[in-house]
């Protein structure tokens, strides 16, 4: 199935939900929870659930994260990852997802703060997902529609409905092997277990993704360390620390719970971003036409 939903339409539709910008929904909410409709972030009130059970385990004793997960709203992080004022009628104030530094703001270098502001004020058409690009790390974790974790031997594999993207994370403690000049949308991820926490180290990212739709950006020197800690059978505590000496004055950290989608017989569907997007045709068939007009 192709979702005939352009990314911008999705952003607008979801931003228009009355609950956007409110504090994160209770972990039992979310799209997949009882009463949570497809595409909704905790829409409606969920009936009370029984208390969560113990962390399920693989044969080797590691937490078994197999299943469907959703990051929920988290202070509107997908729209603006840092603490933000009301931007418009459809983009109200929100706390974002930054837990360090304590002010909830990205510690940009002065030039980078200017650039982020300029992105927001003048370049929202450059928002990478409008162009059907992969979301990158860490944003991929908190995009819409949630994702599936598969745990085949030696790997954690994540696959998304949004942009039909995936991440492949070897968990055999291998080192990064790509050269410093290789840059990928989803980077090079290597993982290892620290107790019940999966630690994922990602390098070789490109500079073509944003942390949100509001223009918050990074360079190709971004280094992300993520920690996935499974605390019960339906909650993974997620943290990511971003380090990029070209853009930030110091590392910063986000945190949010990932909630299990409890909908029975749920499956990831097919998201045809480029297949339903007319923008590419404007670029391809009218290069020098429509695209040139925009530049004027």
């Amino acid at each position, binding site marked *: 199935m*192709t979702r005939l939903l352009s990314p911008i339409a999705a952003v607008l539709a979801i931003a228009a939900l009355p609950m956007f910008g409110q504090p994160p929904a209770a972990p039992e909410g979310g799209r997949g929870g009882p009463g949570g409709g497809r595409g909704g972030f905790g829409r409606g009130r969920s009936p009370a659930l029984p208390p969560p059970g113990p962390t399920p385990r693989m044969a080797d004793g590691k937490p078994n994260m197999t299943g469907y997960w959703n990051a929920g709203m988290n202070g509107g992080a997908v729209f603006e990852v840092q603490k933000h004022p009301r931007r418009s009628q459809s983009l109200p104030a929100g706390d974002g997802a930054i837990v360090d530094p304590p002010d909830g703001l990205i510690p940009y270098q002065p030039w980078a703060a200017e650039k982020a502001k300029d992105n927001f004020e003048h370049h929202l058409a450059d928002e990478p997902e409008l*162009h059907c690009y992969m979301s990158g790390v860490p944003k991929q974790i908190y995009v819409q529609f949630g994702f599936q974790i598969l745990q085949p031997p030696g790997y954690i*594999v994540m696959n998304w409905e949004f942009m039909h*993207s995936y991440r492949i994370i070897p968990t055999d403690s291998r080192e990064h*092997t790509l050269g410093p000049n290789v840059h990928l*949308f989803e980077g090079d991820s290597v993982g290892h277990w620290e107790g019940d926490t999966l630690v994922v180290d990602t390098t070789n990212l490109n500079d073509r993704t944003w942390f949100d739709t509001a223009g918050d950006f990074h360079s190709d020197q971004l280094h992300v360390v993520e920690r996935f800690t499974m605390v019960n059978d339906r909650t993974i505590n997620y943290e990511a620390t971003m380090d990029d000496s070209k853009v930030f004055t110091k590392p910063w950290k986000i945190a949010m719970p990932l909630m299990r989608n409890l909908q029975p017989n749920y499956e990831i569907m097919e998201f045809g971003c*480029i297949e339903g997007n007319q923008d*590419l045709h404007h*670029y391809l068939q009218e290069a020098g036409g429509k695209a040139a007009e925009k530049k004027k």
Partner: protein
Amino acid sequence: MKRRCTVILLAAAAVWTFAPLAAGQAYTAPRTPDGQPDLQGIWEIRNSPDKDIEKAKGLIVEPKNGKIPYQPAALAQKKQNEKNSAKADPLNSCYMPGVPRINLLEYPFQIFQTPGQIAIAYEYIHNFRNIYLNRKQHMEGIDFWQGDSLGHWEGDTLVVDVGDFNDQTWFDKAGDFHSDELHVTEAYTRTGADTLKYEATIEDPKTFTMPWKISATLYRNTKPNARLLEYECHYLAEQAAAKKEGK
């Protein structure tokens, strides 16, 4: 001298590798922890037939003449498609290639196996196929670019029943096409430590006079720490367009 040694070594390796086959014994794949024949690894076709599957030697094994059994009106459409291929090939718009085309492109893909679900991650446009081992029926009333894949094991062969296609994909650059009645039955069989036989039977009563079948060999990437990279088609297309515009 060095080359000759290599040739001899390869010949020796080939004899050793194929010895069990010659003796009439099929290769037995290792097993995953839950007992499935293990198809995991990074695989890729060599000499992609994507330019024209009818012209790729030995690819179409049924019918015996190697021709796609088009109905007359469909053959006319194929010829029209071929003429307009530069513009009309869905891959030129960076669309999802469909099945079996995505397995026949010269880009690697990685197979992962878990107890209820097999997943294939493709380097090409970062695509992903989920093959469900426990669901028995296709979805109703929806269609997919990549189809809806239901898998089961027949001995050491993974058989994947792919249905619910749309009519928007082609089989190759030569305009070979299908309707939304397309139904594909894939078979994946390990034939050696580093080879995988890939077969696909293609049925479409609106387009063909009878089912037809392809067969190809996929090769494992045996480099240590091999990983998929990214082929982001539309990103590259935008970059190319921007460059052209910049002139």
